[in-house]
């Protein structure tokens, strides 16, 4: 089992979720984060002074999946998260961590089938 963390553009969340549903990944956890990466921030203005906002608002997805779902999940995220045909700086990253166990709280089911 793997624990997949994806950092994406906030406005791609809907598309990523749809793409995940298409590959039958239905469960995930979303949180708001701020990222610091290759992407340059956008400019806000305060009484005439432009400011570069470097920490950029992003959305983080945490998805636990069984091993055979890892590649489809990554592909789905890639598909949903890219902002253009060739992608852009700032589109985000996917991280794959090993996951040892899962427990469903309601009934205590463990392991792969609990995911």
């Amino acid at each position, binding site marked *: 089992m793997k624990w997949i963390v994806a950092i994406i553009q906030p406005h791609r969340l*809907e598309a990523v979720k749809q793409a995940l549903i298409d590959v039958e990944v239905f469960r995930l956890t979303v949180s708001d984060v*701020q990222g610091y990466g290759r992407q340059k921030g956008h400019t806000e*203005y305060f009484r005439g*002074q432009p*400011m*570069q906002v470097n*920490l950029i608002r992003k959305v983080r997805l945490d998805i636990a999946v069984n091993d055979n779902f890892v590649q489809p999940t990554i592909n789905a995220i890639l598909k949903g998260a890219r902002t253009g045909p060739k992608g852009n700086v700032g589109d985000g990253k996917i991280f794959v961590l090993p996951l040892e166990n899962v427990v469903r709280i309601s009934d205590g089911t463990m392991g792969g089938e609990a995911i």
Partner: protein
Amino acid sequence: MPTPWKMFWASRPRKCLMGICAIATMLIFMAAPAWGQTATAPVAAPVAAATQAAATAPAAPAVAPIDTGATSWMLASTALVMIMMPGLALYYGGIVRKKNFLATMMTSYAALGVIGLQWFLGGYSLAFGTSHWHGFIGWDNSRMCLLNLSSHSAMVSPGGQNIPEAVFSMFQLMFAIITPALIAGSVAERMKFGAWVAFIFLWAYFVYDPLAHAVWSPDGNGWMTNIGTLLGSTGGAVDFAGGTVVHISSGVSGLILCLFLGRRLGFPRNVIQPNSLGLTLTGAGLLWFGWYGFNAGSANGSNYLACIAFTNTTIATALGGLGWITAEWLHHRRPTTLGIASGFVAGLVAITPACGYVTIWSAPIIGLLAGIVCYWGAQIKTLFGYDDALDAFGVHAVGGFLGALLTGVFASAALNGHGGPNGLIEGNPIQVLWQFLAASNAVIYSAVVTAVIAIVLDKTIGLRVSESVEIEGLDIGIHGENGWDVGTLPEPAITLPGAA
């Protein structure tokens, strides 16, 4: 790098300037019938629409003495109507998604600036000048640029009490501001800011000023006031504080404009997520508060009529809120806070044309009906699928039309005492017809003219933001600002270019 002036020439502001020139041309054209007129006698001009009141006012030899009490209430009323704009900004701003919070508030604040200028540049003269073209429009050269107001002798007595024309003009300006600001409710979350500014500027000249003149022409010659006479009968429609002029016109224009704009991306899913209903409630509270100036101030003095309008407003509004949440309760068993706020606004809208004409026992009936009818008014969009985002049509046009009709039902000449008509219940059923005809004509007029303006703007500067701005939110996309930063995360590091 191009100089600002080159940039200016190459781009939109130049177009705007050309627009302003066009308007100037129009003003001159409109003013034509007035060229011959001598300087308007200040006291005589905007006399009371109410005949007997005017009759009792003595023909002042020099400057009529001011009624300090009436002037005091008109000053306060004008300030009260002004606070409706920040109130409306909160009311609308709290309902939209957080990414459009500031842009939505901005529509009201921009109206304060833009219509303030428009009123100076002829708006006042068009709406409250001497009648031309069978009461379709007003004009006085002396009222252009508010010139005549800088004179101690500029007094008016539309409520039978002498007040300086300056405060009368400002009171009416606030009405001219809030009316287009209401339209923002229909087009929230997707309209270009530049297009909004241009739209309300033009709309004020071509829709608001003529309609205001049609009802409130100071010489009593407006076409709505005389709609019966124009049709060969006698009588006409009444609209105490602007149910037709303000609410029907803005609600209908909102509907038309939102049809031109199209629906928001994701509509009807994913577009409803109010960022702060508490601010919406507060905005509704400020609206109610300011509406006392709007309605009771429309008596144009500190008199019995003002107190009656105040009372009718209070009772109808309370019942409007109860009506709406009762409808909700019966419908889905959840009385919501947005519901009571919306019901209050519905009650206020419906009592607006009526408050100076109907007896107090009719106020709760009008309010309750408004709350229930506007609740359903806000539901019909799901049937037809247009995206009247914050229900400017559903509440203001529907509630305004209802109020216009009910004024015809419940009006009582005895109560008004200033030449108000009797209504259906007092044995004058035709009054309902005049109300219906005036309101319907206002609907058609607003719809057609708004459509023309919308087409013109769409072809030139474009009405709708780009898809990427809509997704990112108008706050960042248009204004370069972020509405809320109240999470626990410390402020993002920012760099001032050149300082880093």
